[in-house]
């Protein structure tokens, strides 16, 4: 259900940009998704396909670009990639991590005719 709201957001943005550029068909929508954005891509594709019926995005493909989870340790200052779901610094094993990237949920670009 969460993916339905995200799919609607994607479609609204895609249609808006397509219209502003006088496009007649959207063939591809590329998304930037952080590893910790919690988006289930197969579910999103399903919802997107349902929503695009009868629109100029009907045959559009979704492309996913994953953005790694990168965090900074507030204790030792280590900055680097961490595994999703880990909340302790891999070096000093303590200190809360401040997320630098990995929560992105953006429409990157469209391919249109």
């Amino acid at each position, binding site marked *: *259900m*969460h993916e*339905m*709201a*995200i799919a609607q*957001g*994607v479609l*609204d*943005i*895609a249609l808006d*940009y*397509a219209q502003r*550029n006088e*496009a007649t068909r959207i063939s591809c929508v590329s*998304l*930037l998704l952080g590893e*910790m954005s*919690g988006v289930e891509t197969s579910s999103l594709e399903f919802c997107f396909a349902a929503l695009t019926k009868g629109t100029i995005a009907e045959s559009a493909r979704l492309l996913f670009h994953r953005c790694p989870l990168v965090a900074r340790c*507030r204790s030792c200052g280590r900055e680097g990639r961490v595994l999703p*779901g880990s*909340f*302790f610094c891999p070096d000093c094993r303590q200190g*809360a991590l401040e997320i630098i990237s990995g929560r992105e*949920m*953006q*429409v*990157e*670009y*469209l*391919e*249109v*005719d």
Partner: protein
Amino acid sequence: MEIQVMEDILGRNDQIAAENQQLLASKGVFALNLLGSPGSGKTSLLEKTMARLKQKFSLAVIEGDLFTSKDADRIAIHGVPVIQINTSGGCHLDAQMVREVLGQLDLEALDLLIIENVGNLVCPAEFNVGEDEKAVVLSITEGDDKPLKYPLVFKESAAAVLNKTDLLPYTNFDLAAAGADIRAIHPGIEVLEVSCSQDKGLEAWIDWLCQRVDAKKTGGERA
């Protein structure tokens, strides 16, 4: 042809949430978005909160529920204005749903608006509705592994209320471990242990809330 976009998918929701927040701030209303699993005790905590605060502040409640008005009925008994939003199966409230009902409240007179979200530890954490703070209710019977399994809701919340502490002797819930996990996910979060059914530990929760309502009221009057 390729069109560069780089726009946040939830940007429209965030924009409406910011407008809601601005409207509430201009009236000096503190808005709390109350999150938690189904059955964690969100409505019970609300009932206890209303009983203690309805003389002190002007309160209103927005109840998010999939289909029923069961929660709203429980609130209405306390004589506090309550607005029901049925999401018809939708797993969270969004900013537009809240915007549509704000007009039904007398915001001028209001001090505290509590928005009880749909019972769910996942989606509501992603959607701001215009609140000042989020608070999450986690009940002992859900298990002490839940903070690490659903970190976002704890990261987004300013307070975590651990409810049903009276059931601790009957479970393997490790209160210290759960508290440590929650603080690791969100340093500075307020962790409060309560039992709504036994009326225990609620003072700290009420104090936490009152401080924020008072601060917002003063801010609102200045604005």
